[in-house]
């Protein structure tokens, strides 16, 4: 089946998310759709999948125009999509999920025919070496396996075009390799795979054709032999440096000292187990690990948002465990939360107000309980300038900014007071290449100015780029602290739970 998009245009109000996009997807190939966040990749795929009505252009299958009213039509035509956030029912089994929406019944009482679904799962699973049990519950499966269930679901509907939307965002490096292997097998069996991503490494590893999208337009196509720099500059629209320039660290006194910290969540599950480490002034300790391995609990208990059941942390020799968040911030902590939209910003506050969210009650921003709007405005303008926040006014809402600019607002706020320690969780998640460069530079500048820096990131590239030392977390424990030049395979194994010695061996 050959799939073609001709001049597809999709507008949201005045904003053109897709501008006359042409795309040709041939069977038995991997077509990478490369672009920064916000470039319009997902919108395009949602149009193709029948979730959005295009404002112009047409979709052709084997040269015949088609019109999809919804995902049902697209699926019937042989197009399947694995969304970045999986569409699985967690308390259901694999077989039940695969059957969902295409339930088959048997017998006079129209009972669900689960056996045929089970067989299908087993058959596809065997064909691609998936090793998925049709009767396991989704909630018991690791993320990588859940993704395979999504793929099985697509294949069970005889999909000839499989769209994978940012499929590796939630995977460990090893799981990513496994996924790429699966994609190769699918391609060889004649399926067309559309890979939506902004990760150059994967594109180079697997794509047959690369289409680069920027600001809703196709800006070029490339061959997988293109260098990372070429692809990146095509994606961003200017030359970019792929590595962060960073001088050697000069660690001084211990600033943050964590001893035996343990956290148990509301359900009684231990999320953080006896974690101990130190961060010195002038160095960056990066915590690597797949999301959900205790990183959130670690940073929240350091901030004072979560009360640990055991252990303590001290900042510059002063115990901070048990203090209120305000007191911990006062003690010299700058905190960049992992989710800026829920914890970092008030979306419908102005940029100016977001810039004073944790300093509003200090001079010069307020006086005897009254805010000083003119001072707030002036300082906000300064910060917008210093941190290159792209906006026309400091009185626009923070929610109206792009992700990169939102993150700059959080950074501007946190870095503009004297810090002893900076904690930043996934500081560049969802940002474009240009903003990443900027954020990394600011973090390194903070280190060079003498602050201790703790970075938590589920992106290995980021960890390797920033760290002076790397701590790897798995299941709430630190499995090892290693130097920054440790090879990726070793780090990958550690992220999957292997201790340092095993991983190196």
């Amino acid at each position, binding site marked *: 089946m050959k799939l073609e998009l001709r001049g597809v245009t999709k507008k949201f109000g005045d904003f053109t998310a897709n501008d006359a996009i042409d795309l040709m997807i041939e069977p038995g190939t991997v077509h990478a759709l490369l672009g920064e966040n916000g470039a319009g990749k997902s*919108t395009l795929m949602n149009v193709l999948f029948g979730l959005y009505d295009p404002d112009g252009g047409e979709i052709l299958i084997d040269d015949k125009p088609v019109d999809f009213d919804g995902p049902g039509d697209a699926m019937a035509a042989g197009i399947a999509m694995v969304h970045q956030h999986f569409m699985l029912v967690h308390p259901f089994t694999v077989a039940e999920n695969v059957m969902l929406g295409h339930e088959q019944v048997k017998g006079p009482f129209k009972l669900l025919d689960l056996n045929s679904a089970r067989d299908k799962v087993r058959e596809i699973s065997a064909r691609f070496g998936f090793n998925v049990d049709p009767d396991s519950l989704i909630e018991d499966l690791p993320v990588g396996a859940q993704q395979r269930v999504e793929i099985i679901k697509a294949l069970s509907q005889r999909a000839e075009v499989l769209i994978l939307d940012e499929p590796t965002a939630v995977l460990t490096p090893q799981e990513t390799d496994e996924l790429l292997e699966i994609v190769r097998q699918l391609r060889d069996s004649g399926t067309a795979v559309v890979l939506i991503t902004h990760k150059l490494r994967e594109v180079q590893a697997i794509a047959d054709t690369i289409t680069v999208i920027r600001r809703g337009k196709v800006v070029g196509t490339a061959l997988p032999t293109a260098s990372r720099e070429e692809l990146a500059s095509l994606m961003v629209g200017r030359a970019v440096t792929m590595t962060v320039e960073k001088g050697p660290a000069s660690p001084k006194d211990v600033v943050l000292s964590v001893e035996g910290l343990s956290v148990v969540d509301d359900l009684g599950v231990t999320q953080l187990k006896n974690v101990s480490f130190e961060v010195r002034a002038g160095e960056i300790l990066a915590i690597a690990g797949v999301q959900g391995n205790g990183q959130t609990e670690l940073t929240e208990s350091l901030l004072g948002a979560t009360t640990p059941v055991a252990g303590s942390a001290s900042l510059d020799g002063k115990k901070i465990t048990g203090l209120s968040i305000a007191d911990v911030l006062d003690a010299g902590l700058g905190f960049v939360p992992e989710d800026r939209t829920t914890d970092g910003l*008030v979306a419908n506050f102005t940029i100016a107000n977001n810039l004073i969210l944790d300093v509003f009650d200090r001079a010069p921003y307020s006086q005897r309980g009254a805010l000083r709007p003119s001072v707030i405005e002036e300082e906000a303008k300064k910060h917008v300038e210093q941190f290159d926040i792209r906006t026309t006014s400091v009185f626009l809402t923070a929610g109206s900014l792009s992700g990169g600019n939102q993150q700059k607002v959080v950074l501007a706020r946190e870095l503009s007071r004297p810090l002893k320690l900076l904690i930043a969780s996934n500081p560049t998640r969802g940002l474009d290449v240009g903003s990443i460069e900027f954020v990394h530079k600011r973090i390194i500048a903070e280190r060079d100015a003498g602050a201790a820096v703790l970075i938590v990131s589920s*992106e290995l590239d980021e960890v390797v780029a920033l760290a002076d030392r790397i701590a790897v977390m798995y299941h709430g424990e630190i499995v090892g602290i290693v130097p920054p030049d440790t090879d990726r395979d070793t780090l990958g194994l550690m992220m999957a739970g292997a201790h340092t010695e095993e991983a190196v061996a």
Partner: protein
Amino acid sequence: MSEETPVAGAGVAATTAADEPATASAPGRPDGRSVIREIVESSTVVVILAVVASLILSGVLILLADPDFRAALQYFFSRPADTFQTAGDALGSAYGAIWQGAVYNSGAPTFATKIAPFMQTLTSATPLIFAGLGLGIGFRAGLFNIGAQGQILIGATLGASVGFMMHLPFPLHLVLAVIGCTLGGALWGFIPGVLKAKTGAHEVITTIMLNYIALYLVGWLLSLEAFQREGSDNPQSPVLDTSAQYPRLFGDQYQLHWGFVVAILAAVFAWWLMERSTLGFQFRAVGANPSAAKTAGMRVSTITILVMVTAGSFSGLAASAQILGTQPSLTTGIAGSIGFDAITVALLGASRPFGTVLAAILFGGLKAAGPALQVQAGLPVDIVLVIQSFIVLFIAAPPLVRFLFRLPTPRIVKEVAA
């Protein structure tokens, strides 16, 4: 190369508080057209159109209830002019009665009596302004406080106690009585505030229940000798000393009292509190995004309690407009339906002080127009309730208003990009 989840646009989608129109998240800069669009999309326009729509819809009901119009409608095709004639008459007399009953009675002999309806409108608006301000503060802080009714009752009880049990000279007695009202309301706001902050009990449930508790508490108090009026079998307290009452603003010809001036001052204070004070900054932050407020070091539970106490204090002032203004004797009916009308007023005023004052005057006017509607237009007073209910209905359903008036829908802010 270390990005993953595309969250562009999610910023707005994540938290859009009820009182803030969503701002477009498209990366484009605002041009002339989108500025107009923003104005059109703003809730102010929707609110005004909701009022217009409810007046039109009520007009239809008024027509259907009018016997002359129905009779004329039956021979519409032979003499359509009759139908329009009777329709004009019915609507003219209804809306004319509202105008004359609420704003300006052109039939009255002197100017002073001509504007008497408007004075009555302002009098009725006074408690609504107070209570609406308090509720609006709560809404903006993310608390849906349904408890103004109970807060008014308890405020009125404390105010009345000061008013008839103590006997003091004029300004002092009034000030103490006002303080009594405020404290009573504050206390009745503090309870659900603490329950919410310490146990997570939802304020909607607790405040509704506290309304009942307040009502029966007042009923019981009025059965006690200390609260019984001498020589009366009805459950009502002695009349408050004049020294504890708001003086009339323009002499005895109008009911309008100094409470109205206090209400306007309260609106200015509420504006300052929410827009200019560090406390109001925290109120708004906690209301718009409690997680971000917490991460920034604000004490969310303390703020919750303070918000409820503030809202309760304003309701207590609403009680003062009643007990120290228009009805200087405590009864279980002292709060009327003010506590509930004030919810509509606050929503209609978009929880902003200026808007709340205007909305309260509108509702005060509808209330004042009731008798005129009945006498002049021969319509049931209930038509006022119908108009009010339509307003609520339309306010609650902005898409309906936009559909009726063919306004553009606000841009879909979710998933514009990625």
